[in-house]
């Protein structure tokens, strides 16, 4: 590891590009190569921030919450000097000790054991979804599958009412855009965000949530004082913020993997137990969450460069997940690969607390598909959806051949 070598300090190499510009958001791969080639840490003069793209340094920094803090915001905006657009997340945008209690509360609610009770319902929902897709001559793997399944099962699991769920995707999309600079993507969301975000906040109230969902469990934790009654709605909000768009794009990624590598679909059909590997491999390969910022809590040496205290560092999770010094043929979506250690869910104390929820959703869908579908074929040109933080598609036209 090179976080503490005794070499003399040098200036970070500068890359004069806009990583939030539409060209790089649409196809970040060439930029990631430049980023990794330039050094373990670079300077992005456009935003006057530092950036890391190599697996070793990104991984090391993500686990090092002591020196790379989150409480100054995991977006470009520095909460030390700027007011956040919404009250900061009690999970994503806090450090220990403030981070501990919300995390302790959420972990057992979302652990695999707790989720098991939901599996039969989700399997049925997945089977119905696949039957419906098979009845269509052609379908869109984004709108008809990747968006539809999480929006069907996840809000039920949280316990929010049916009405208004159409707000979830615009909310999440804006939230993840807002981690970047105020560019056209952010401006596009601004007119609606007050209303959408008001609706989301409303769903976090105890009276609104059903008695048996994750939301109710979070409120129960406040009854015995594991968190405060003021914290409970914000923890519920974290589920609604982080649990929808991310899963949508991750399901889109795994479908994109099978569409571009038909032999991998054969592989899954032959061995459906690989569904879980397929999903994590898709997250490594596409990295639906591309970036998060950290802030240096002291002068941090990375290679020969010292990142000064208080400065933002942009972690390129997608670049780390495709770093050829960590992964053989990283550009290949490969079910025989062991994707363990990818940083697509983050790493360390902030690693995605809802990852088991996403995995179980994906597993239900992939198992249902593997049972009923012989082939998944492209049926048009995929269209990228641009977001300052997320990588995904707005359309993946496809055709299914039944078994």
């Amino acid at each position, binding site marked *: 590891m090179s976080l503490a070598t005794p070499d003399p300090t040098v200036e970070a190499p500068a890359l004069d590009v806009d990583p939030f510009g539409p060209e790089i958001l649409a196809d970040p791969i060439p930029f990631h190569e430049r980023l990794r080639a330039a050094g373990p840490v670079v300077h992005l003069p456009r935003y006057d921030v530092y950036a890391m793209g190599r697996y070793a340094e990104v991984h090391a920094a993500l*686990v090092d919450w002591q020196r790379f803090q989150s409480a100054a915001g995991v977006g470009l905006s520095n909460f030390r000097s700027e007011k956040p657009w919404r009250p900061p997340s009690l999970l994503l945008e806090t450090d220990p*000790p403030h981070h501990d209690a919300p995390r302790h509360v959420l972990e057992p609610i979302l652990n695999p054991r707790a989720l098991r009770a939901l599996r039969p319902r989700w399997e049925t929902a997945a089977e119905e979804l696949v039957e419906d897709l098979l009845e269509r001559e052609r379908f869109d793997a984004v709108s008809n599958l990747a968006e539809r399944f999480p929006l069907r099962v996840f809000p039920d699991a949280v316990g929010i009412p049916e009405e208004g769920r159409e707000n979830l995707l615009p909310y999440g999309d804006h939230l993840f855009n807002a981690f970047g600079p105020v560019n056209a993507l952010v401006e596009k969301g601004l007119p609606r965000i007050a209303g959408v975000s008001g609706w989301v906040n409303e769903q976090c109230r105890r009276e609104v949530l059903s008695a048996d969902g994750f939301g109710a469990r979070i409120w129960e934790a406040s009854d015995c*004082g594991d968190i405060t009654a003021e914290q409970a709605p914000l923890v519920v909000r974290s589920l609604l913020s982080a649990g929808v768009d991310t899963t949508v794009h991750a399901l889109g990624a795994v479908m994109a993997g099978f569409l571009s590598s038909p032999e991998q679909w054969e592989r899954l059909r032959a061995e459906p137990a690989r569904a879980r590997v397929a999903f994590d491999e898709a997250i490594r390969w596409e990295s639906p969450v591309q970036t998060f910022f950290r802030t240096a809590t002291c002068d941090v040496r990375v290679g020969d460069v010292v990142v000064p205290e208080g400065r933002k560092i942009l972690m390129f999770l997608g670049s780390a997940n495709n770093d*050829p010094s960590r992964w053989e043929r990283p550009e290949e979506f490969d079910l025989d690969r*062991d994707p363990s250690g990818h940083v697509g869910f983050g790493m360390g104390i902030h690693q995605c607390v809802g990852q088991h929820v996403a995995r179980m959703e994906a597993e239900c869908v992939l198992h249902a598909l593997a049972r009923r579908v012989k082939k998944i074929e492209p049926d048009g040109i995929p269209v990228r959806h641009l977001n300052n933080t997320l990588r995904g598609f707005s359309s993946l036209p496809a055709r299914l051949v039944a078994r």
Partner: protein
Amino acid sequence: MSLSSSPAAAGRPAPVVASVGASGRVALVVTAKDPVADGVVRLRLEAPGGLRLPDWTPGAHIDLGLPNGLTRQYSLCGDRWDPRSYEIAVLREPDGRGGSAFVHDHLAVGDGIEVGGPRNHFPLVPADRYLFVAGGIGITPMLPMIEQATMLDTPWSLLYGGRRRVSMAFVDRLARWGDRVTLWPQDSHGLLDLASAVDAEPSGTKIYCCGPAPLLAAVESVCTDRPVGHLRIERFEAREQGPPVRTTGYEVELARTGTVLGIQPGDSVLDALAAAGAPVLASCRQGVCGTCETTVLAGTPDHRDSLLDEAQRRRNDCFYPCVSRSASDRLVLDL
């Protein structure tokens, strides 16, 4: 199912976090051993090569896998901001089963040791105020809690009892907190006056207590009027249990293989699982540490552990096979 590990041609980057082996433990080295009171030693444990250790939160404990085959739980009492070392304090228990005596008499600086966890059944939750009550070596989990309460600007006080002043560890470390700390050596002060200490606390105070079983029982008896969740106890000894629900045998089904085991009422489920070739990692065998936690898919456990609270017991979704049994004819486990 096998997966190629596909190390890249250039080689995997060196790990930054000490890796957990197949046993669920990390191999650490004792890098310091100091007496901190009569009968108490403090150990510092680090990973070879100075790697980061798994993160922890105040109240967490680790399992120390001793070279003599015993496993013991100890609360972490160091600084969580230091990612490269764990600190624990071990009281020599003259009537113990040999774990603490081994640490005192045989474990030396430079020795390797297997460490499991950290796990936290005693997390510091938000409060208006904290009252920390420590008996003897029960001071260990309180030390990082005190640091964090201070950091959170939450008022706190500590009532710390021990047999004799010289047997009370970390008194010097607590000196800087002035009169927030009340030291109460039994030989000069008698038993802790828990009733007065608890009565003086407003309703928003959360009370944390760790120490010998009689102290825990005493604090429970003076906290009966406190709201749910306002008394938090760390047990290193098992809670008293009533008689088992069943006096007859029952069946345990292992869902992943379909194996069905017949269990006699006096048998340990843990032993039966091991005998059937489905061993579950265990440690304390007293329902205290949580290592053997097992998922229940169907049936009603007869919970006999000291970990789950009433609400958790009613969910019937997990149990600890070292001590717990079945209340129903059949228990289906996710094994």
